[in-house]
């Protein structure tokens, strides 16, 4: 598992208050991890902060699963 994937999963587990083992790449923030729309906004902010990057709103709308976030950040994060 990449360093980015590990960090993403840690952030998700902390912010959504879920067990780390539930944070799989296929897990949907809303359907599987109990997030609501505000939680996902905050998660994107947490990714931006942690990876020192900017995630535009249209890109943020496509980040629905843990794997989506990892893929986006692997491509775009510094």
């Amino acid at each position, binding site marked *: 598992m990449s360093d980015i994937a590990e960090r993403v999963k840690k952030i998700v587990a902390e912010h959504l*208050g879920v067990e780390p083992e539930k944070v799989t790449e296929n897990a949907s923030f809303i359907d599987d991890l109990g997030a609501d729309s*505000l939680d996902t906004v905050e998660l994107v*902010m947490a990714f*931006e*902060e942690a990876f020192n990057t*900017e995630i535009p709103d249209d890109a943020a709308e496509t980040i629905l699963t843990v794997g989506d976030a990892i893929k986006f950040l692997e491509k775009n994060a510094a």
Partner: protein
Amino acid sequence: MRRVVVTGLGMVTPLACGVEPTWRRLLAGESGASRVAHFDVSDLPCKIAASVPRGDGSDGSFNADDWMEPKEQRKVDEFIVFAMAAAKQALDDAGWHPSSYEDQINTGVLIGSGIGGIEGIAETSLVMKEKGPRRVSPFFIPGRLINLAGGYVSIAHGLKGPNHAVVTACSTGAHAIGDAGRLIALGDADVMVAGGTESPVNRLALAGFAACKALVTAFNDDPTHASRPYDKDRDGFLMGEGAGVVVLEELEHAKARGAKIYAELTGYGLSGDAFHITAPSPDGDGAFRCMSAALKRAGVSAGDVDYINAHGTSTMADEIELRAVERLLGNTAAQTSMSSTKSSIGHLLGAAGAVEAIFSVLAIRDQVAPATLNLDNPSVETPIDLVPLKPKARKIDVVLSNSFGFGGTNASLVFRRLDA
């Protein structure tokens, strides 16, 4: 109008989390005051406060995790967590957990706060300044709004009736209970979860109230003697924090389900000083008029009042209230006991009126007037028994509870023993 009774009590105070441990410690003469240790007070003129005792939840300590999931706590200011704790206690105490749609829509929430999420506003404004608007959390607004205390409570317990909030500074808790009682009396709801909550023990709020010259500053090395209503050495109020919530219920609704009834909420009076933004009118006329209105609504005369839980903040305003009460009671003043429980728990601002309403109800239940601590040398003579230093066992059938707030907003509540 329909009659309204109190069937559930809940509180978080500087003495304890929970009604019975708080009441026990109050009657034992304990103080919730201490030197502030969880943030820097070195440059503040007031370095003490009455803080809620945090702990693992045992022995009356407050453990936020017992009342709200950690991931939710992170999104809100503490006044919301305090309200969640007090509301759950009150609903459990009342044995009222509405599950049918009919019961849910007839149960409402009216919880207020004086200033709400001031700490979160302070912290987020720093984030805004340092990192810009993209770092402002989506939970910033919903976690600070005053009515979100009631919002969270309604969501947690499925309460779909009237959902309202009061913001009247230090009269908030009393206004919330009074207004909730009216909603029941007028038939808008059968049950109301009502009260006040506040979390002002932080640097910004202490600095702000200190700038108003309202806080005690002469007792930084002697916190437990700082709150001393009516005493000649008092020099300002002691900041407190916490929440008080009651379950109010229409009398027949309570009887039909065999609920335990603490007391009847018989009177509620309101008035405005129209005088000054922070100082009460020196003639005490606003206080007198709201007490008079509450007694009139309750259908009792001043001579019927056994105990008064005073606003008594340990400031210069104490004497104004005292004179207004003397005017109210007239030649029956010597029959009434009046104390300020702020001498023990400090001033809980928007929660004060609700916590003190609960003390008033417990005074009726246990036939005891809690003491005014630290009242060693009264600053003025009065025929009224100010219950100095030790609680007093006595007949208590009718209680008046006073709250007065910045802006000149006044509220009084009257509770009566049901069979009295």
